[in-house]
């Protein structure tokens, strides 16, 4: 007699497993890559994560991922204007990178499909933990993306925009960037599209000694798309990373941020805004490891919640025993604009060093009535005044970026969202 211990597969799980069999012959990769794909699909076969897995407690992927669309290789996505005018655009259209990429001094660009085929992308495909469902999904199916190498000492005067545009169906993309010692760059990761797609996108960033990077994730998927994303970064000695995440779309969104400071003097800043409307679910989960002494981090997340939207921020900071003099501060502030909206915050500090400064705070507020009165007393009608105040709440975080072109560009995205949902 058989005793079934694994629950019955959900339609989404079955669809993913079937899709893997169908796609296998089309997926690029040498032996090592294909073995990693096998491991990854095995992880999916054992079931998508449920709320019983701690890091997925608020996003029960098994329950929330109700269907998985078929691949649609014939679908067409068109490159769009970059967020910051004048950026060099590297497009991935419906999961496929371009053969024609801009030629920029100090930058070498490779299509990821080539690096999968020759196996040089294999080391990056490893899961970072047992609960790495997004990594597994991506490793199983990833077919393309880019590998960008920014040479030591290069200072880019214009941003690079990595544009991942879906056209429905499934796309699984990997964007890998190495920033050489002392190099300086602004990189925009654009996530958008027009279809009811399932997107997995994994970004990997390696900062060598003294590199200085501002990385902007601008996620504006339609409210029919599922967007599962991961951003992984290693910060070398004296490297500085400012990561800005803007979620302004998607039906089911999980953005994981996995950052490790591996060199002394590394400095990590996370700024995030989640603009949540309709009947959507958005989860930002960060795991930050302070692995060496004398590193600093600050995280500020601002959320605007309307409609029946649900949002989550999980911020986990691990301060390793050896990582003395760590300085870490985390804050999550939510403006709740509807009765049915919801936001959950889970800060976790795990500290094994004894000489550190770490703190966190979370607030949930409504619009300040005295502020509203002040604006209205100047003749600004209630709706406009509310809009100004809500925008101000998140714009504060954007303005911290302190670069006029970037601030303006992001505020334009913000205005777009408010025009559609205000």
């Amino acid at each position: 007699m058989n005793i079934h211990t694994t629950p019955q597969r959900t339609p989404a799980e079955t669809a993913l497993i079937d899709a893997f069999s169908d796609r296998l012959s089309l997926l690029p990769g040498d032996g090592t890559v294909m073995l990693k794909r096998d491991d990854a699909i095995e992880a999916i076969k054992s079931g998508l994560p449920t709320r019983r897995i701690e890091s997925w407690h608020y996003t029960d992927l098994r329950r929330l991922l109700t269907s998985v669309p078929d691949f649609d290789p014939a679908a067409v996505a068109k490159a769009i204007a970059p967020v910051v005018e004048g950026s060099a655009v590297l497009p991935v259209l419906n999961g496929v990178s371009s053969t024609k990429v801009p030629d920029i001094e100090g930058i070498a660009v490779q299509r990821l499909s080539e690096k999968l085929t020759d196996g040089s992308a294999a080391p990056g495909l490893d899961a970072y933990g047992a609960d790495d469902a997004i990594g597994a999904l991506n490793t199983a199916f990833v077919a393309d993306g880019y590998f960008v190498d920014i040479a030591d000492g290069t200072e880019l005067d214009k941003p690079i925009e990595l544009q991942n545009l879906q056209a429905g169906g499934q796309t699984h993309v990997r964007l890998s960037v190495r920033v050489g010692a002392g190099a300086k760059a602004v990189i925009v990761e654009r996530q958008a599209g027009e279809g009811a797609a399932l997107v997995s996108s994994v970004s990997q960033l390696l900062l060598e000694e003294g590199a200085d990077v501002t990385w902007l994730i601008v996620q504006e998927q339609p409210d029919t798309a599922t967007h599962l994303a991961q951003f992984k970064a290693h910060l070398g000695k004296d490297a500085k990373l400012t990561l800005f995440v803007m979620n302004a779309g998607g039906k089911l969104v999980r953005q994981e941020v996995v950052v490790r400071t591996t060199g002394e003097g590394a400095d990590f800043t996370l700024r995030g805004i989640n603009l949540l409307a309709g009947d959507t679910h958005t989860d930002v989960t960060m795991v930050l490891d302070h692995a060496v002494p004398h590193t600093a981090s600050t995280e500020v997340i601002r959320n605007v919640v309307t409609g029946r939207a649900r949002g989550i921020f999980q911020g986990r900071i691990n301060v390793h025993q050896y990582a003395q003099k760590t300085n870490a501060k985390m804050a999550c502030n939510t403006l709740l604009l509807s009765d049915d909206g919801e936001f959950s915050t889970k800060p976790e500090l795990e500290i094994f060093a004894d000489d550190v400064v770490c703190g966190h705070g979370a607030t949930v507020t409504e619009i300040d009535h005295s502020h509203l009165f002040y604006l209205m007393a100047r003749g600004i009608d209630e709706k406009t005044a509310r809009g100004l105040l809500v925008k101000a709440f998140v714009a504060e975080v954007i303005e911290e970026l302190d670069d006029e072109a970037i601030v303006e560009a992001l505020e334009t995205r913000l205005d777009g969202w408010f025009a559609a949902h205000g």
Partner: protein
Amino acid sequence: MLEIRNLHARIVDDGTEIIRGLNLTVKAGEVAAIMGPNGSGKSTLSYILAGREDYEVTEGDILYNGQSILEMDPAERATSGIFLAFQYPMEIPGVATMEFLKVAVNEQRKARGEEPLKIPEFLKRVKDAAALLDMDMAMLKRPLNVGFSGGEKKRAEILQMKLLEPKLCVLDETDSGLDIDALKIVSEGVNALRAPDRAIVIITHYQRLLQYIVPDSVHVLYRGQVVKSGDKSLALDLEANGYAGVIGQAA
């Protein structure tokens, strides 16, 4: 222009009655000073005129150009020409001062059926007003009132008043927190707004401000009522003898 009739009002939260049968008439072109000791209801009166929701009018009426304004929200009152210069202007992080000024000016123009101001014309008006008030334009690039000193906030209020060109100006303790030089500059700014078709209500604790903005009428508020009215000499009398005499007569 402004006629307050037997006004009674209370705090919504706890029902405390603050204004208890207040009568006041201010004509177009008139500068009226409202004086009174702490707690007499001066600031409450200014908030009620502007339409703050924390207060509820239980009796009486406020007529502006013959029309009751009680049913109007703060924005409607403002676009109809009522302006309150706040005693404590709010600091609003994230709202750029210039952007706020532009939205306010153009919302009011829209409500009056006028075209929005073109950017160069708007900037010119702001620059002119700032120069008159000896304000640094760099300050206006900052978030609204954030990090402004007490004096800077008051100047910013008068700057807004100048840009919005209201018909009924209510100045709540505009002199508090101002040093003597700033007081002169702000007073000149207010005096420049004196016009036959505009009324100005100055709420103040001290006679000091009235040396620079000379009122046509002075009203003493005590326990939510106007207990005495007179001309500018009443202010001097209060300065010399305190409120005790006037209040004594009323009680």
